[in-house]
């Protein structure tokens, strides 16, 4: 429970009044993004994403297991996130806390509700055997905006995942069947200014946060408001617009990085 650092707030607010951010970005501008895939040989798919200094690694493991009784012919996906103490002096070891749970659930819903993975193609034997997809998100370096970095790393990892059919004596490996990825963009508000892709400093003084995932048709695929502040309806509209715009560019980079 940290006290909001008022000096930092005053400094960033003053900058913002003059239309500026600490690192020189425009309000609706992302930091530099790097996407690298195939970084873990043991994983069926993996990607390391950097957004500025924030660094997230997602690894995909697949296995075989039973389907849920109510969906006997679809594969099962699970998303877990660990805010491991490697990534920040403030992260603690132990079972995931609220922040890690929210992170994992928001990434999970982004993938699940957009039906990114074609789980209906992951059935091996109805009611008996389906493919399991484990999405494990490792935060390596935390400098703000984990939601987007975690989401993007997970997309890139899934888009380059090979189903390990050979290891389970089910024929040749083949790419995980995937649909169009929804791109997640996060904004925060402080002192009546809304900025995209918050840095750590900006997150620490943020009053309210909004994550919007949009697809290539500019449709909305997921939203999540966070923190104990509030948005006006007008602000939400602007955030959606900026998310669509940034989403386009990020989608292009994602396609390029994953060879699609």
């Amino acid at each position, binding site marked *: *429970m940290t*006290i909001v650092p008022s000096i930092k707030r005053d400094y960033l607010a003053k900058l913002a009044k003059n239309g500026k951010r600490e690192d020189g970005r425009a309000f609706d501008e992302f930091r530099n993004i790097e996407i690298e895939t195939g970084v873990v040989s043991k994983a069926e798919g993996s990607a390391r994403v950097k957004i500025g200094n924030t660094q997230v690694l997602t690894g995909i493991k697949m296995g075989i297991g039973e389907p849920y009784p109510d969906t006997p012919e679809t594969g099962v996906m699970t998303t877990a996130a660990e805010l491991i103490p490697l990534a920040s002096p403030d992260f603690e070891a132990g079972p995931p806390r*609220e922040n890690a*749970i*929210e992170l*994992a*659930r928001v990434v999970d*819903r982004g993938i699940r*509700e*957009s039906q990114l993975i074609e789980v209906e193609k992951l059935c091996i034997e109805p009611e008996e055997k389906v493919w399991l997809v484990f999405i494990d998100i490792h935060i390596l370096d935390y400098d703000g905006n984990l939601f987007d970095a975690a989401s993007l790393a997970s997309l890139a990892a899934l888009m380059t995942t090979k189903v390990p059919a050979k290891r389970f004596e089910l024929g040749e490996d083949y790419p995980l069947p995937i649909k169009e990825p929804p791109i997640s963009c996060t904004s925060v508000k402080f002192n009546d200014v809304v900025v995209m892709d918050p840095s750590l400093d900006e997150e620490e003084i943020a009053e309210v946060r*909004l994550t919007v995932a949009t697809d290539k*048709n*500019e*449709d*909305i*695929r*997921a*939203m*999540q*408001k*966070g*923190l*104990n*502040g*509030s*948005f*006006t*309806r007008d602000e*939400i509209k602007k955030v*959606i617009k900026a998310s669509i715009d940034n989403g386009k560019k990020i989608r292009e980079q994602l396609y390029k990085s994953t060879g699609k």
Partner: protein
Amino acid sequence: MKSEIKLFENGKRLDGRMPDELRNIKIKAGVLHRAEGSCYLEWGGNKVMVAVYGPREAIPRHTQNPLRAIVTARYNMAAFSVEDRKRPGPDRRSREISKVISEALESVILVEKFPRATIDVNIEVLDAEAGTRCAGLTAAAVALVDAGIPMKDIPVACAAGKINDQIVLDLGKDEDNYGSADLPIAISPRTGEILLLQMDGHLTQEEFDKAFDFALKGCHIISDLQKKAILEKYQSEAGGI
């Protein structure tokens, strides 16, 4: 969410509601003896009980914030509240819901008045049927008023969604399972500020706007029910004298 199932026909929904019609809602304030504030709410098939304790000293001390109170909502589903028995205790879903409700309530509670304190909002879902987070937050707001916790406004929550390409207010059970989008929001009805906002599924920008309008409308209707329940409580107390 799949959309193969017919959820909307001849301008009506499976349960006979119009697109912009709420399920039945009953709210009763001050229903528990021990709690400092409480509320029992029925919303369609949902039954929710909320008890508020505090402000009281936050324990252990390292959880205290020296400048303001912390608000700890605890959303819990009773083991028997769902079709297949739920294992007791918090799961990831309930912990996320607890977090977003806590944050929404903190937006309106005058937390600066109670440094180092905690305000505990215990939300028990006794019967569950789509929309429990909105039901829980709405009942929590009434229980906070009943407990005398000072707030800028009485928050209220409601959801809209999409079924068979039709935007509808307040998804019911089958609509929640087979619909194609769900948009729960919570607002401060006086200012229209948005305190909680989540969206799952698939909405065009136009659909989002319409769903948002529906949800806002629902919030304002329910806000009136909240105020009526609070009034009834005060009147019954006054009548008791």
